[in-house]
């Protein structure tokens, strides 16, 4: 394949990776920014979103699009509710102690993963895309659904940004992020904010899972890769910075797409990890993170 089309395909693939990554990492970054909780179970919320999409799609009758739209609503809500429960039952009782919550979310990771294995089974199940539309370029064909994923992720991230910047709930969350004690003395129910934030973060991961599942398949082990990449994105972008997360997701996604095509996927992972090391050494707060 000639260089031009090759690069185009690499960039398109990279954009899809970046879009899904941005959604998943935004949730992780939000949870860390507001709650100072490093959620190791974040990838499992992503996996649960994909699994629930399969469940919803197999229950809802009619064309695939109906089931898919239902999954887009139901899966994030259910996963968010589960996360809220986990917050109330586990994280709150640990007083959001950074070390304790890391260990607790590791436990949560295994509980969710093994519960899924027990209830859903070890198989990878496909979910039909809401529409079958293929773009035929002169050099190669491309899935129209993948481009839809990029668009959908963009819309969701824009909505999240508006929510954080333009609504009262967003203002309260930002206030809690800046100073939890002062926020509380101003009458903000910090516990409720934390619960909502954890649910929102998990919901975003679940939404990413629903979007990816027609491209991949729903399987209980699928939470591992996005977790690692989300951490990479969040560390580079700066924990708690939505803008940093988006930019880092684009950098990682596009470099992953192009490097894995022109060289090897392993090299892409090596470079991404090296980038993390460099950021941690020279700019520990991340590209856009506030100094702690």
């Amino acid at each position, binding site marked *: 394949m000639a260089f031009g089309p090759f690069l185009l395909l690499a960039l398109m*693939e990279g954009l899809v990776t970046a879009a899904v990554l941005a959604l998943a990492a935004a949730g992780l970054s939000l949870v860390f920014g507001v709650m100072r909780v490093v959620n190791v179970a974040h990838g499992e919320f992503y996996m649960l979103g994909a699994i629930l999409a399969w469940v919803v799609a197999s229950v809802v009758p009619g064309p695939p699009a109906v089931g898919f739209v239902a999954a887009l609503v139901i899966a994030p809500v259910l996963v968010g509710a589960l996360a809220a429960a986990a917050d109330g039952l586990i994280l709150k009782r640990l007083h959001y102690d950074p070390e304790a919550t890391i260990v607790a979310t590791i436990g949560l990771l295994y509980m969710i993963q093994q519960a899924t294995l027990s209830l859903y089974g070890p198989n990878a199940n*496909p979910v039909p895309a809401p529409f079958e539309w293929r773009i035929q370029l002169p050099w*190669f*064909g491309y899935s129209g659904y993948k481009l839809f994923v990029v668009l959908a992720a963009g819309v969701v991230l824009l909505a999240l940004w508006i929510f954080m910047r333009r609504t009262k709930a967003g203002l309260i969350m930002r206030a809690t992020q800046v100073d939890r004690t002062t926020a509380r003395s101003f009458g903000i129910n910090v516990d409720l904010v934390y619960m909502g934030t954890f649910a929102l973060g998990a919901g975003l991961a679940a939404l990413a899972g629903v979007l990816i599942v027609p*491209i991949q398949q729903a399987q209980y082990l699928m939470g591992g890769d996005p977790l690692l990449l989300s951490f990479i994105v969040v560390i580079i972008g700066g924990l708690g910075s939505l803008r940093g997360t988006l930019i880092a997701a684009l950098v990682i996604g596009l470099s992953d797409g192009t490097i894995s*095509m022109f060289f090897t*996927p392993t090299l892409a992972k090596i470079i991404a990890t090296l980038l993390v090391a460099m950021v941690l050494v020279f700019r520990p707060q991340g590209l856009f993170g506030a100094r702690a």
Partner: protein
Amino acid sequence: MTNTLLHPTRRGLLMAGGAGLLTAALPGYVGAQAAPIKIGFQLHRTGIGASYGRWYERTAQAALKLINDGGGIAGRPVEILFEDDGTDPKRGPEVVDKLTQSDGSDVVMGTLFSNVVIASAPRAGELKVPYLVCSEGYHVASGILNRWTMQPGITDVRSQITAMAPWVSANLGKKVAMIFPDFAFGHDHRDFFTAAMAAQGGEVIAQIAIPPTETSFTRYLPQIPAETEVLYHVMVGPAVLTFVKELGEFYGTGAKPQFFGFIDSLEAVDTATPGLEFLEGSHFWEAHNRVKPADAGEHEDAYRAAVGVDDNGASVSDAADIATYSHMFSTWETLFAIKAGMEASGYTGPADRQKFVEAMEAMTDLPYGIERPQGAKVFNGKTHQVFGTQNISQVQGGKLVRVHQTSMADGAYGDAVDYTTMAF
């Protein structure tokens, strides 16, 4: 106070001795009646090989029922102890260990993924327990394993590939690009197909290795050279459906090469899945035809009924649950091979394990029958590997239709090892 433990009375000693004798003799007596033969089964119940594990378990259970209904092995009932290896090479040897040492299995049946088999076989050798694998890989016949490891239920990949190459070069094209998983099984494909094509005057112009845990494939596809005449693909793992779908998206409605795939790329996947229309007219290797051929053997129906598979290769209870039909027969045939080996060697217990291996090595012709629903086979005692016939199917109307069957001679190659000269 007298301590009877330190200073026992004569009566106490006699009674204790008598009780001891009784307890020692009792299980021997009961055992002579009905002690079951225990076959350990290292199973991919979870992990990336789970779809194979699901069907391996069902097929083994069906064969077990048939064996027990027919009087078991040498009159003894048989039980299978399944143990999950998570399709994980690290867990493989632990499972062999547990099945042998803790569960007291007489022999251990192995699993599919070649990385797990290669990791587990040395432990079986150390424990001196027969390890009968159902994995296709060339690792048994290549000589890298040991005298305790055998593959009596499925032809190895080297022979399968050797049998395919003449047909591919004569009917599909000479310039081949290969896509294969980047581990032992895929490397067998790479090495032997490349050599077999060269022997046919063809050429492999690209070798594209993909990690077996990969979930996204489009990024690898531009490496396929434009002048490719035949795209040879073999993929494994939970993402095989994604692989074929992305292959279809990549070529779309544009010009595309001929596709020749190992059915592994589509095991447990419905060929009529939306997005796979592009496979119409393409060819696949199959060991055992998923869709029942019109001229299927006389035992095909009984086998399908026993394992619960309909004429399209799906579960009779769920049409969406597609069998791993070209691999699962190996567990059935291996169980019957174990039965034959144990009965020939007069196997009575773990002390006879060596005799069992020697009896297996003495096997040669294995005729077609309900014991071997995939077809007649020849076992090579020196290489511990069985050989049979292969099929080439074409997707016609969304279904796999057999268009060619190879002979056993097509897949023949010279012995690389003589395990019978190795020490136990």
